[in-house]
């Protein structure tokens, strides 16, 4: 299919200021989109309130507006520039939210502005959890049990049905702002109240907790001819309960057989088709019960996301760039693969290495913020590394954090020097460390090492952390190797 000639100018909405959960990855995707669409000869109009971005550099767009990303200002720009369409999928949640507001208030209709990338209905279906659950039902996929509530009383009723712990997720917020996990009624009441205030539509989802389940993500692309390809599978080192942005993540998935992976792939195709993202990328998250393989769909982002930036780097498949091309009518088989140049983009990258991403937190800068990790993202950055083994990638990523650590141990910078402990205090420490590991915290990765050094078994650690034993086994191999090296000391 050739590119669309019925449109001449495209409005791209950026993601605004850097906040937790929405950082430079959206500058990257927006910049890619500006470049590609201008190359294709379209007039590109850009709005982004953040002048410290690449996309607002001169020459990247035909007209750049550094204005607040609010319905009012976007409408003013539409009046002046009369774009034919808006591409709302490059600027994170901010761009989607403002687009939905403009569509619902009738502004888009008034100025006959269309949407490319994702239609209003698709955005609503993906973002509104009620509509999302109904959509998943229609294609025979399962979500966690629970319901939407607009008041504390209703929330209490649902809580009685599903039992604690319960996850609280406010509707239409970014990075899971205002969300949390409640283990009892008091916590629940407080968190629901907070969630209701955070949600622009005063609604929260209270849901059966799948804490401790395995978490997976698939990056999916679809074109106007309904071709769907999976760019990358991602398995989270940290189980469900820790926000993906705060999880150590690994690509590709490590502990799924082909049968299980293909079931997930089929589900992802059903999700993107049912939600109706016509062109471009989406990110779909799944939870899998490690005991029986039961799979739930957690959520879908109908846009390029933090994970798509990671998937692009991990596979070499430029998701944002291709998504922009798909948005103007090209199909996957018409776009050349960036790496091979000779073969088309309609393929699924296969890699001969392992990718590990480790988040970085800066709690020193956020005094008073609880450092426990949960469903609300708290990390401010990340390092990604590639290696031929998980261990290699993991060590490289840890070292790349620029926090003064050279990897998992062997750098003389431990808070706890296990080798110097007496046998008696070892067993006390073992218990302390295992207890500490029950609560997800930023430095836990080093505590995993202490636990292993203290003789905790993989079962012990799995019991405390719910981290898949396969990952723990790999860490154990690193720790054992350190011990071996240490034994050669003169």
């Amino acid at each position, binding site marked *: 299919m050739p590119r669309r000639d019925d449109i001449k100018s495209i409005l791209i909405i950026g993601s605004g200021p850097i906040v937790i959960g929405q950082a430079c990855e959206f500058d990257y995707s927006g910049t890619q989109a500006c470049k590609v669409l201008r190359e294709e000869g379209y007039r590109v109009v850009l709005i982004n309130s953040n002048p410290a971005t690449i996309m607002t550099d001169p020459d990247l767009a035909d007209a750049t507006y550094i204005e607040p990303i609010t319905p009012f200002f976007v409408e003013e720009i539409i009046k002046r520039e009369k774009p034919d369409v808006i591409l709302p999928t490059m600027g994170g949640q901010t761009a989607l939210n403002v687009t939905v507001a403009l569509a619902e208030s009738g502004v888009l209709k008034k100025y006959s502005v269309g949407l490319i990338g994702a239609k209003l209905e698709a955005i609503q279906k993906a973002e509104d959890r009620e509509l999302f659950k109904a959509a998943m039902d229609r294609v025979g996929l399962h979500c966690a049990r629970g319901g939407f509530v607009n008041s504390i009383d209703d929330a209490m009723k649902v809580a009685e049905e599903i039992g604690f712990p319960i996850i609280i997720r406010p509707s239409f917020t970014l990075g899971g702002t205002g969300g949390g996990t409640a283990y009892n009624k008091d916590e629940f009441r407080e968190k629901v109240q907070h969630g209701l205030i955070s949600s622009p539509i005063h609604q929260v989802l209270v849901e059966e907790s799948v804490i401790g389940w395995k978490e997976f993500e698939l990056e999916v692309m679809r074109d106007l001819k309904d071709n769907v390809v999976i760019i990358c599978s991602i398995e989270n080192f940290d189980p469900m309960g820790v926000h993906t942005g705060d999880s150590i993540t690994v690509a590709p998935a490590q502990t799924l057989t082909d*049968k299980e992976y293909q079931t997930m792939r089929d589900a992802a195709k059903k999700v993107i088709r049912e939600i109706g993202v016509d062109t471009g990328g989406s990110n779909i998250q799944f939870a899998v019960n490690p005991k029986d*393989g039961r799979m739930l769909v957690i959520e879908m982002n109908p846009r390029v996301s933090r994970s798509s930036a990671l998937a692009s780097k991990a596979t070499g498949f430029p998701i944002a760039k291709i998504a922009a091309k798909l948005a103007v009518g090209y199909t996957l*088989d018409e776009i050349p693969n960036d790496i091979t140049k000779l073969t088309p983009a309609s393929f699924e990258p296969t890699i001969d290495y392992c990718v590990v991403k480790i988040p970085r937190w800066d709690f020193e800068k956020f005094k008073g913020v609880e450092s426990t990790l949960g469903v609300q993202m708290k990390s401010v950055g990340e390092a990604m590394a590639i290696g031929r083994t998980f261990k290699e990638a993991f060590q490289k990523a840890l070292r790349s954090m620029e926090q003064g650590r050279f990897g998992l141990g062997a750098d003389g910078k431990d808070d706890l020097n296990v080798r110097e402990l007496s046998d008696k205090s070892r067993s006390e420490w073992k218990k302390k460390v295992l207890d500490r590991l029950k609560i997800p915290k930023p430095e836990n990765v080093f505590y995993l090492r202490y636990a292993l050094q203290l003789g905790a078994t993989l079962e012990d650690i799995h019991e405390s952390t719910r981290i898949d034993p396969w990952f723990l086994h790999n860490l154990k191999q690193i720790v054992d190797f350190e011990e071996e090296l240490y034994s050669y000391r003169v």
Partner: protein
Amino acid sequence: MKAKLALEDGTVFTGEAFGAETEVTGEVVFNTSMTGYQEILTDPSYAGQIVTMTYPLIGNYGVNAEDLESVRPQVAGFVVKEYFDFYSNFRATGSLGDWLAQHKIMGIQGIDTRMLTKIIRTTGAMRGVISSVDLDDENLVAKAKKSPAMAGLDLATTVTTTAPYTWDELDRTPFALPPSVKTRVNGKRWNIVVYDFGVKRNILRRLTAYGCKLTVVPSTYSAEQILQMNPDGIFLSNGPGDPAAVRYAIQNIKQLIGKKPIFGICLGHQLLALALGGKTFKLKFGHRGANHPVKNLLNNEIEITSQNHGFAVDPSSLDPTKIEITHVNLNDGTNEGFRHRELPIFCVQYHPEASPGPHDSDYLFARFVDMLERESVGAGKDKQEEKGRK
């Protein structure tokens, strides 16, 4: 235990044995799938081959009794970068290494599989040997050179079933794929004879899912024997080796063309091409993996496909007045499928049954059943017309 992999070009890799500790020769090929090692190991099409996985971490999810494509591992040997004896998956019943040892299949790990793959891509698939009993480089290279070449080798005859059997099993795991369309409208089930050149079980399961009743027969069954069984259709399976070397099968298929509807996969596709007067040739390093994009020329849709073949059909050798090319590989433009313009015959080079791999091409089984239905209606009509004339 220390082990070595030697190629006929003189390259020698040193690693560590897992599975059985022995010595074996074979054609060294690589597979790019990131999941599905158990299905790959048990695929009879890998007979005579030492399979290298380009994905470096293997063994992670162990093995189980469900993900088998035949009764046992069929590869000659297995080469990986890092083998995991420690596994984690709720379906796992044991480790990959123990299972390979039990079936006397040798694996070698700690190999720079990226370098090995690059060598194969440059030079082409090569003969090789893996050994934990002889570690002398010169000896090993000599053994690799002496081993049989794949071109001209009939391996299908070595992996086919010895006696016919019926098959009526479905995938009973929670991951079973339902048929994409309603199977049988009127409850009728089709009797299909499956020519076994090394058939994968998931082909049998998918045909069964679409309402076929299967009789699997040895590759050596003659055309007369097949026709005596009077099936509604014939399926030509996948299998190992050089298609041109399975001469008796080509002769048999020639006699079946025009008599019954035929569907072929992989080696079955190549044998059909040869029986229709076409030619096959050996690919430099073959297609083995689960991410090959194929374009369906009939509707221009793209399928991500599972593939495993070292030979291919030369489409220019097929008579365009009789044969229509239906599928093409988007990576290298090679032929992936064709159909007969007049007769109920079609086939694909790749694996619509997946296992391992994506389910994008499952519709081909539906197409086969549709073809059987059309043929049976057509035949019924013909008979009625005949009756009317009488």
